[in-house]
């Protein structure tokens, strides 16, 4: 469970570090008074949707790290026979990197209020992601043809499960992407989609990192 413990230690460490700054030298029983006398008070300026997304990313990080921990524990058994990862995974990885890049461009455009740039970059980013998922399915198809079925060996099982869980997260992101694209088609003003684009960008970067981690794991074992 080392992988999971490292991820959780980072998350909990972040929470504790933040809390220390919030609570150090605070004596709530001794403080009384209107706002501004002792604290700015209230919540901070990061939008709720971003906080919600960051919390969700922590949940997803925990989920993937648990799969990775299970992977490490299971591969120690004698029946583990590593499978040769299909070459198309390299191509898929490139697609995902490009997708993330285009999301970043879309985010830059939305910050600068360039609706056209948002529309184009967002569309390309989504299509690249669809291509990534299609590529993953292609990889599955190739493995099936070579006889690497889900239940043939635990290494195969993990390959299918890890890629499926990652793809499901991508599909969830594509749902938000599609609603944003739909809004843009209806000529909404750019500030109305700013949050969605920013959230999608963070989410795509996160899922790219997760995929790079998983891909490295699959290649190295």
């Amino acid at each position, binding site marked *: *469970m080392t992988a*999971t*413990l490292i991820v*959780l230690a980072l*998350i*909990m460490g972040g*929470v*504790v570090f933040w*809390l220390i700054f*919030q*609570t150090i030298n*605070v*004596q*709530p*029983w001794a*403080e*009384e*008074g*209107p*706002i501004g006398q002792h*604290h*700015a*008070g*209230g*919540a*901070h*300026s*990061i*939008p*709720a949707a971003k*906080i*919600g997304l960051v*919390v*969700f990313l*922590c*949940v997803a990080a*925990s*989920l993937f790290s*648990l*799969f990775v*921990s*299970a992977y490490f*524990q*299971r591969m120690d*058994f*004698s*029946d*583990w026979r590593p499978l040769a990862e299909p070459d198309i995974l390299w191509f898929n990885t490139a697609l995902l990197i490009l997708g993330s890049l285009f999301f970043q461009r879309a985010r830059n455009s939305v910050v600068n209020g360039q609706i056209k740039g948002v529309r184009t970059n967002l569309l390309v980013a989504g299509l690249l992601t669809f291509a990534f998922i299609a590529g993953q399915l292609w990889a599955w198809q190739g493995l099936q043809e070579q006889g690497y079925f*889900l*239940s043939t060996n*635990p290494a195969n*099982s993990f390959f299918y*499960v890890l890629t499926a*869980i990652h793809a499901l997260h991508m599909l969830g992101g594509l749902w938000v992407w599609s609603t944003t694209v739909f809004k843009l088609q209806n000529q909404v003003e750019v500030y109305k989609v700013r949050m969605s684009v920013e959230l999608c960008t963070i989410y795509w970067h996160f899922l790219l990192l997760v995929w790079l981690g998983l891909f490295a794991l699959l290649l190295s074992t």
Partner: protein
Amino acid sequence: MAHVALADKEQELAHPKTWIGMYVWSQDHKIIGIQYIITATAVGVIALILSGLMRLQLGFPGVFDFIQPDEYYQAVTMHGMIMIVFMLTAFFLGGFGNVLVPLMCGARDMAFPYMNMLSYWVYLLSVIVVCASFFVPEGPTGAGWTLYPPQAITEGTPGADWGIICMTVSLGLFVVAFTMGGLNYVTTAFQARTRGMTLMRMPLSVWGIIMATILGLLAFPALLVSVIMMTLDKTLDTSFFMPAISSLGENLSHEGGSPILFQHLFWFFGHPEVYIVALPAFGIVSDLISTHARKNIFGYRMMVWAIVAIGGLSFIVWAHHMYVSGMNPYFGFFFATTTLIIAVPTAIKVYNWVLTLWRGNIHLTVPMLFAIGFIFTFIHGGITGLFLGNVVVDVPLSDTYFVVGHFHMVMGVSPFLVVFGGIYHWFPLLTGRMLNDAMGKIHFWLTFLGTYAIYLPMHYIGILGVPRRYYANGTTEFLPDSVHAANFSITIAALVVAAAQFLFLINIFWSLFKGRKSPRNPWRATTIEWQTPDYPPKHGNWGKELPVVHRWAYSYSVPGAKEDFIPQNEPPSKYTRGEGEV
């Protein structure tokens, strides 16, 4: 810079006009909380009845023909899983979390009300699926609440075909529902607090609920991972957990899987789960004790940091549930050490509750009775936890009734006492009526004394070596007659305690319509959920203006103040500062 847009977004709240919109597909956190409470209570009653069936068999072995071994194991399994996950977790976080977090933080609603509504409906779906397993061929799973493979998915175990699938699917749905709800609780507490409600002015109830939510968000994925992989082992013949095995004389297609891997994943969820249930109880009981003893909580900062420390440590103790799994003794030493360390912040909390009571103006109201009862049961359950945390003591006691007695005291009875205390305390806030005091006191004493009558003898028979999960002890020679007498008396006590819970339900229904009208803020509490302009609070909670918080949540018996409590939103004056009339 204060950011109040979210907390004060009244114009963005959904304002449904129809009854269905207001009370069924509601996005109001209070209604969603009540929906959680009603559903969790309903499913809890099912689990209570199942425990009654178990006790009938153990107290009167062989007398009741309708309880055969299969039904017994199914009752054991469903009782455990329903009580822990679908009842207590849902009640504390879905119920109390929904009702209290926005109100106590001074928000109009949760940060994401629509997702909050979805959270309840997915939770309800998970409850429906788990209950549907009573009606599938061969009934629900009888694998024990820990669902250990290979037993759970191998022929011969009750419900090994349909029942276990219903269980894994319902748990998966529950995790999804919890994640949607949990995102709301955390984001609301971090972002939607009203002006002046700094972190260190938050009531401990909120701290407990939020830390438990963080634990849940990080630990429930372990349950999700384990049920996904077990479902694949069952349905698609993978071998994540399933070793090479023969079942009913036939070699199965699995090979090489690791049942111990499942145990690691399960307990990586399972132990934080104890604190997911306990931390909200810690927080709520702190508020109950402070309010009903008319005294500020002792060591507030320590209480906050103890909650955080317990939350962090709860992730590195999981393998103390696995001492008999053949683990490396060095690991056993490590996990025994961390288990004992977690007792330190927990003990700090207990001392602080007792020191809050010390020389307090104790009002023995029904909520206070339950809070004090909790301190007793939690100390007893906690101390036996120290026994079981030590490898050398745990090994002989493993899988005996000592363990059953321990965990029922510490994470069964104790949280339930807080659930009851919380309901007696906040029922007036939600309904505008008081619960009947006499019925409440009868309910408390029967429950409190009754649970001791149930669980103390379990420790005794556990030390004698009576194994848990056995359908019948038979005429095993090493068991003295006192074991059978104890089992008989435990069953009688259990039936009495179960009946007392129906008295509680009668009290709820009766008081809902006939109960005494509650005055505003009947407990004279400082926290702002009692200071809403409408009583009970309406959708949006705060009318036109959000409250402004001026102090912490525990200004009780302040010298020189006009009354023995100063609400958090009361502006400072010469009276509240102690410079006025005495």
